[in-house]
């Protein structure tokens, strides 16, 4: 009996020490758990130093233009040589489009000052022809280093919560091993064998029992208090923060930035508080970025908030943590494996080096309106989540495939049929339930007000191109 008490008292001391003082050594027995390749992990931090100059000089852009002829899909970029430095007026930053739609090899050409990030990241991801530099960043493998237990936190506000996690882990380990040792020791020492009899001992002992009531009580009071304090840090954003609107629906994210740029990847600046104002279009979703330690449900017709201050540029995971139906597991999946259906590329959080965030806003805004309609349509397909339900390879998912659908006549759920033409496609986007393709569930949300005119045209053109 004394041994138990000794163990418990010891445990209590360690707990008090653990929660009050420094972070206990992480239980790093499992070693590193990086999923990203060593190469890509190494690239990220260096790139953070380069692009201090966010406004892109028109001259440099011109240079980039000239050397990137293989980026042929960008329509007449040189006609608008003046970029808006603040990136707010998306349309007149048009010349930046070439950076986006130029081939990977084109970007380094302008690397002098215009696209340093492109230079840094396009190289390892070579061959991503026609992919914008910021998407190259987003396509990079997820970098995660950390302990056996958790990826390293890149959110300054969550450091306390990690400390709590490891403290409680140590506390739990102590209690668990104390109890296990006691159970095993007793079970062996007092095991039944011939001639062995139970020995008399007290049937209760108030002092002892009060002790082991009071000790856990003290421990949990501490846990509560520090948990509450660190929680307040995790959920209270500073006054000045970059605000990003988050809209979720089945099964995609849409992040809307201050200048109206929307994307299904979340791009944020490093070392800057970012506040998310979130809501959902249909059912509950939950924004979960493990490396940021941020999780918050999105509730339809109500705003919820989250914030973080990322400390290290890089590409981080983003998942939906609240069950939302068929493709919950593949929320905002941009690319799936043909054979297994496994998602190869989900939406991510891209933390930009200083200055790159502004460049992203400008380039993205320009990009979205200066592409060939087919390319724009493809972008909308990927970024607005059409791909969550519609394939372009002929297989059916939640919705009918787009491949070869244009011009066909499809049966409708009310028994009639309709020809897939421009008007049908437009109506299907704006009022999806009006003429429902037979055999598919009426689960598509309306995109009324979500798409610009050009984007709608783009989608139609893109569907036409899928023969």
């Amino acid at each position, binding site marked *: 009996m004394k041994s138990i008490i000794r163990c418990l008292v010891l445990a209590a001391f360690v707990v008090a020490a653990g929660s009050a003082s420094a972070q206990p050594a992480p239980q790093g027995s499992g070693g590193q758990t990086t999923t990203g390749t060593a190469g890509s992990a190494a690239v990220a931090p260096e790139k953070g130093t380069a692009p201090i100059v966010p406004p892109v000089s028109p001259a440099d852009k011109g240079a980039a233009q000239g050397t990137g002829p293989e980026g042929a899909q960008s329509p007449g970029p040189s006609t608008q040589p003046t970029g808006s430095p603040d990136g707010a007026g998306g349309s007149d930053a048009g010349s930046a489009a070439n950076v986006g739609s130029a081939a990977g090899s084109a970007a380094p050409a302008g690397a002098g000052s215009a696209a340093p990030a492109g230079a840094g990241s396009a190289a390892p991801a070579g061959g991503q022809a026609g992919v914008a530099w910021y998407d190259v960043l987003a396509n990079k493998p997820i970098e995660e280093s950390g302990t056996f237990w958790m990826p390293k936190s890149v959110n300054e506000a969550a450091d306390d919560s990690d400390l709590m996690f490891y403290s409680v882990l140590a506390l739990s380990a102590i209690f668990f091993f104390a109890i296990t040792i006691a159970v095993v020791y007793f079970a062996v020492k007092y095991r039944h064998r011939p001639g062995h009899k139970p020995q008399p001992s007290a049937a209760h002992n108030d002092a002892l029992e009060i002790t082991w009531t009071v000790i856990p009580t003290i421990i949990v*009071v501490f846990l509560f208090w520090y*948990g509450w304090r660190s*929680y307040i840090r995790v*959920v209270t954003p500073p006054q000045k923060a970059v605000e990003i609107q988050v809209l979720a629906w089945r099964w995609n994210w849409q992040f809307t930035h201050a200048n109206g740029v929307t994307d299904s990847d979340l791009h944020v600046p490093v070392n800057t508080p970012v506040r998310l104002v979130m809501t959902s279009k249909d059912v*509950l979703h939950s924004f979960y970025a493990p490396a940021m330690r941020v999780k918050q*449900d999105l*509730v339809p*017709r109500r705003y919820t908030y989250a914030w973080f201050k990322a400390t290290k540029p890089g590409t981080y995971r983003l998942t939906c943590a609240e*069950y939302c139906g068929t493709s919950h*597991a593949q929320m905002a999946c941009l690319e799936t494996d043909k054979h297994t259906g496994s998602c190869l590329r989900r939406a991510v959080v891209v933390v930009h080096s200083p200055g790159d965030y502004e460049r992203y806003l400008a380039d993205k805004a320009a990009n979205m309106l200066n592409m060939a309609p087919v390319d724009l349509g493809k972008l909308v397909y990927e970024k607005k989540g059409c791909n969550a339900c519609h394939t372009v390879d002929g297989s059916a998912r939640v919705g009918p495939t787009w491949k070869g659908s244009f011009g066909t006549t499809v049966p409708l759920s009310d028994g009639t049929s309709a020809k897939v033409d421009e008007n049908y496609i437009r109506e299907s986007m704006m009022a999806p339930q009006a003429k429902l393709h037979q055999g598919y569930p009426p689960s598509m949300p309306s995109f009324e007000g979500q798409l610009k005119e050009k984007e709608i045209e783009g989608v139609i053109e893109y569907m036409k191109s899928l023969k």
Partner: protein
Amino acid sequence: MATTANRQPDGPVKEPDFLHVTRGLRSWLLTLDHKRIGMMYLCGILISLIVGGAFALIVRTELWAPGKLFVSGDTYNNFFTLHGAVMVFLVIIPGIPAALGNIIMPIQLGAPDVAFPRLNLASFYLWVAGALLLVLTIPFGSLDTGWTLYTPYSLETKTPVLIAVSGVFLLGFSSIFTGLNFLVTIHKFRPQGMGWFQLPLNVWAIYATAIMQVLATPVLGITVLLLAVERFAHIGIFDPNMGGDPVLFQHFFWFYSHPAVYIMIIPGMGVISELISTFARKPIFGYRFVAYSSVSLALLSFIVWGHHMFVSGQSRLANMVFSALTFTVGIPSAIKVFNWVATLYKGDIRLKTPMLYALGFLLLFTIGGLTGLFLGILSVDVHLHDTYFVVAHFHYVMMGSTLVAFLGALHYWYPKFTGKMYPESLGQLCSLGVFFGFNLTFLPQFVMGSRGMPRRYWDYDPQYQIFHQLSTIGAYVLGISIFISVVSLFWSFKYGKKAPRNPWGGSSLEWQAPTPPTLYNFENPPVLHELYNYDDLEEIEPDVWVRNTPIEDAPARADAIARQTGAVADHTHGASLKEKAISDVHAKAEEVRAEHKLTETSHGRPVDPAKIDQDFKDAAKVSGAGEVMPTAEKVEEVEAKDKPGSVTQGWDVPEVPSDDKEKK
């Protein structure tokens, strides 16, 4: 066997046991006997367990690799929903209280049945109806909402939510009726002399559970009713598009479902108290602390529901309050674990199958409880909420603790209610398989969860694959172990070795009942002994225990011994002089007879009846009662006359409904 038979407290059983008192399917389906109802529950629950387990294995198999192996998307969602709904509503909630509680609890009280036998049967059929409705969802497209039925998804999905919630509604009422029945039974059917603190801890736990069942389950009924009304009549309650509040549903749902977690775990704690005490041959350490902690857990469980909703958008003040309250739950849980461990101290520990389950429970529950601390801490919960960490945590509590306790309890009482022993070595092997398989399944899930793997994903990032594979292997070990256990129990029911009355040396009243018990459980009024006192119990051969003070069959003799030694209580208090004299004669004669039989048989010679009669006469002379009992038959006759409502025992014989008598 002669020795055994002689020292068996009640001697041979004269009445048929409850399994054979009547025959035919009808006699089972319309029975009012709590043991038969309990056994029907048990069969239903074991079948549901295997079905729910099969769903779990489908889910785990799919998770062997990222991407689709054989189910994906909607099908996967159906399977995890079915797994959750079947396991929660059909297996774990009714597992210990409705099945084993029904069979054992009235016997532990020394009662002939529960207070409302018809209500008991009705609650069983409600369970059957609810179970059928849940199964019926499968041909109608199968539910895909998760067992939590969160709105607004459950309002929009095309899957048969209405059928499922009707099933849940009926299951809720089944649970309420069972709880109500047990509350009344425990209040009114305790024998005289059995105060609240002479109740076995299992009964305490069932009492605490019954309080929660009666108070919390109606909220579930109302919630699913509102959900059904909203789906059916489009009245805005939870649907934000109609002015409803989807988070309100979560409040309602967890207001029931959090107490439901304790409806699952507290009966488990009750049986563990019994198992550990019996197999350690020690009174439970700090009985009152353990009893009070059951009730305090039951009460606290009503005010912590909000900790399921820390990231739902509920206010921070609410989060703070719920976090603080949640930690209070840790205290009684910790007390229980410490008390159980302390009970082992200086015991004489027998590692039979039920005890192996009980020790496994201690370790698993400790892990389940400690990982609950992580989730109670607000800032840490933000990271861990809705990840595999939560999945692992609640499986440690609901499965690692409750189901392991259920299996332990099943093995412990199995000989009592079936009259057959299960194969011990196989049982021990399976209990180890369950323990290691379970840990292999769920320990990796903690790591996955803290690394950020969300729940309810059929497709995942390849970095988690190794953990998923370990988990899947563990799940098969676990599933096979449980399956073999269940099959071996069914097998033993027919082919098992005959069980003695008290195979484990238990001290509570059920071990005085015949094995299997008779229709009204006891032939003779059971005699109260000091609870959890094992000093009198002796193992005379493997798995056969008797009391050294064989007072069960001869209350009069017990009184005589009691008076002589000045111990216990004078059960003949208030009896007339003549009655006392008669009881003296009986006592003396019994003693003599017992001695003779013992010595004679131990020398291999038969007992001479004439000699016994002579001893009787001698005894009568010595006692000076002046009345001679010539034969043993006469003694029995007098005793029989004395028994019901006799001076010797406060034995409440409840009114038995007339149709209940008919079944005899």
